[in-house]
């Protein structure tokens, strides 16, 4: 069943898009991640223009994160103060990111920058995840091994504008979460992701937040930042395809529910190793598109009518 996507200006099979949403939703439900970092490259692989894939994915992530954010909110797992600081950073970052995106699109380098960002971030995060979870797995089999220090002080803790975050039991410089928010905002704009895969480790290792509030607070921030990206991409680039986003949303919310049920029966470390390997596989696939000799070194871009 072919459906014409008005913004992407192409026809794709609606059932395939629902299936794609379902598959990515299943993985995101199982692993507790947003899934944007899987969906955007997949959309590009099936021929959606990269700019439309990124803009539309930001819109889909809004839908994918909101129910999780509400659930955590009800359980009191959101550090609102931290979330607001992250959100301000995220607004700054995503606004910068969309301007950068528009500029790169005009000079014809956006596809390249999207691909390089994916290779870089998926590579780093994938390797860290696999290494960390393999270590944890060994530790669980050998409990007598020495544990790492949970918290260490660095120059980061000497920064000014200290703020008390009661829910996170932290007294740190507001510049830290603000900076994390800016970086994640830029990523959200350029890569079409929520940025949870960068923010969650940053909150745990860099800010030292307790894990109980990490997921809720990051989802809270993601909803606002991806909403901002959706708005700015619509205004600047007209690259948000509502029809495509809706098909992906329907597929992914169903997939996510099934995935969450399956995921709860699996062991934490094994799930993280599997996720790390998936992240690395996507990274390798994107890297391949950068190094393989193209069929034709010339390509078309549209300059626009006048």
């Amino acid at each position, binding site marked *: 069943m072919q459906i014409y996507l008005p913004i992407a200006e192409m026809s794709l099979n609606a059932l395939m898009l629902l299936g794609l949403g379902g598959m990515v939703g299943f993985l995101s439900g199982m692993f507790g991640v947003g899934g944007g970092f899987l969906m955007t490259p997949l959309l590009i692989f099936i021929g959606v223009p990269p700019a439309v894939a990124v803009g539309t994915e930001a819109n889909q992530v809004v839908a994918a994160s909101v129910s999780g954010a509400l659930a955590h909110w009800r359980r009191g797992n959101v550090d609102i103060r931290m979330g607001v600081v992250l959100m301000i950073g995220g607004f700054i970052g995503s606004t910068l990111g969309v301007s950068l995106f528009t500029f790169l699109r005009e000079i014809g380098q956006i596809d*390249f920058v999207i691909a390089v960002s994916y290779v870089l971030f998926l590579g780093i995060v994938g390797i860290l995840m696999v290494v960390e979870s393999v270590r944890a797995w060994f530790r669980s089999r050998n409990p007598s091994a020495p544990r790492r220090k949970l918290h260490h002080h660095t120059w980061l803790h000497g920064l000014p504008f200290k703020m008390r975050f009661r829910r996170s039991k932290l007294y740190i410089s507001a510049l830290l979460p603000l900076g994390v928010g800016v970086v994640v905002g830029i990523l959200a704009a350029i890569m079409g992701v929520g940025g949870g895969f960068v923010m969650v480790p940053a909150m745990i290792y860099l800010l030292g937040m307790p894990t109980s509030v990490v997921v809720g607070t990051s989802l809270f921030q993601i909803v606002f930042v991806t909403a901002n990206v959706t708005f700015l991409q619509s205004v600047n680039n007209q690259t948000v395809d509502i029809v495509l986003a809706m098909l992906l949303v329907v597929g992914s919310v169903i997939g996510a529910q099934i995935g969450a049920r399956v995921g709860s029966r699996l062991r934490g470390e094994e799930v993280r190793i599997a996720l790390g390997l998936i992240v690395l596989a996507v990274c390798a696939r994107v890297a391949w598109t950068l190094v393989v000799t193209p069929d034709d070194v010339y*390509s*078309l871009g*549209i300059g626009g*009518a006048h």
Partner: protein
Amino acid sequence: MSRLLSSLPKWLARWCMVFGALCVPASANAQSIVADLSTREVAISTGFTGAELLLFGATEGFGDIVVTVEGPKRDEIVRRKERVAGIWVNGTSVTFEDAPAYYRTAASKPLNEIASAQALEKLKIGSGRIDLTTRSQDSAERVLKFRDAFIRSKKRQALYSEDISDIRIIRGRLFRSTIPFPVNVPTGTYQVTVHLFKDGRLVSSEKTPLTVHKVGLEAKIYDFAHDHAAWYGIIAIVIALVAGWLAGVIFRKA
């Protein structure tokens, strides 16, 4: 196909007009070619997967027919990838101004058998002969490479095509040709020109305009996204928020 069938009565009426024109004895200098399309518009709707139009007409006596279809003009950028440290990056680019987004030539026999290269050049018939102007400062040789690449890319997207076997002439008088539009067909006004050649000389030509446009919900979404971009963004966010919230509610109860 259903669109073709639904427009059949009008289509038949036009055929009758064509036959009518043939029956009236015409003077030597009168219009010696008549042509029409099965429909004057291509509508892009939800299930659009491409379309095929039928061009038909009649000539007075024998001759060769060349049909050109030229799409809306716009600036098109051709970019060349270069290898930098093992990675392919877009390097130099050339912008062709007012290049047709779609171009098709169909002829009743190979073009070089119909008319001389000079005659075809003058009439700009054939994708190799269309006007592609650029303000690029590059050398003519390099621009030529970009020009070839532009036509090659367009052909790969099925937006440029050449077909010499497509026109069927029935009893030396009636002819028909199909005009294929791929799913990625650009919207705008198209110009269909039917040329009649006799002994290598252009004796008559007829132009028929044609519009390709989005209809229904697709058109509304596209126009709204471009004309009211801020509202479009807000609506996209609201839909996503409601959809996500609704999904949470439904699955919590289930």
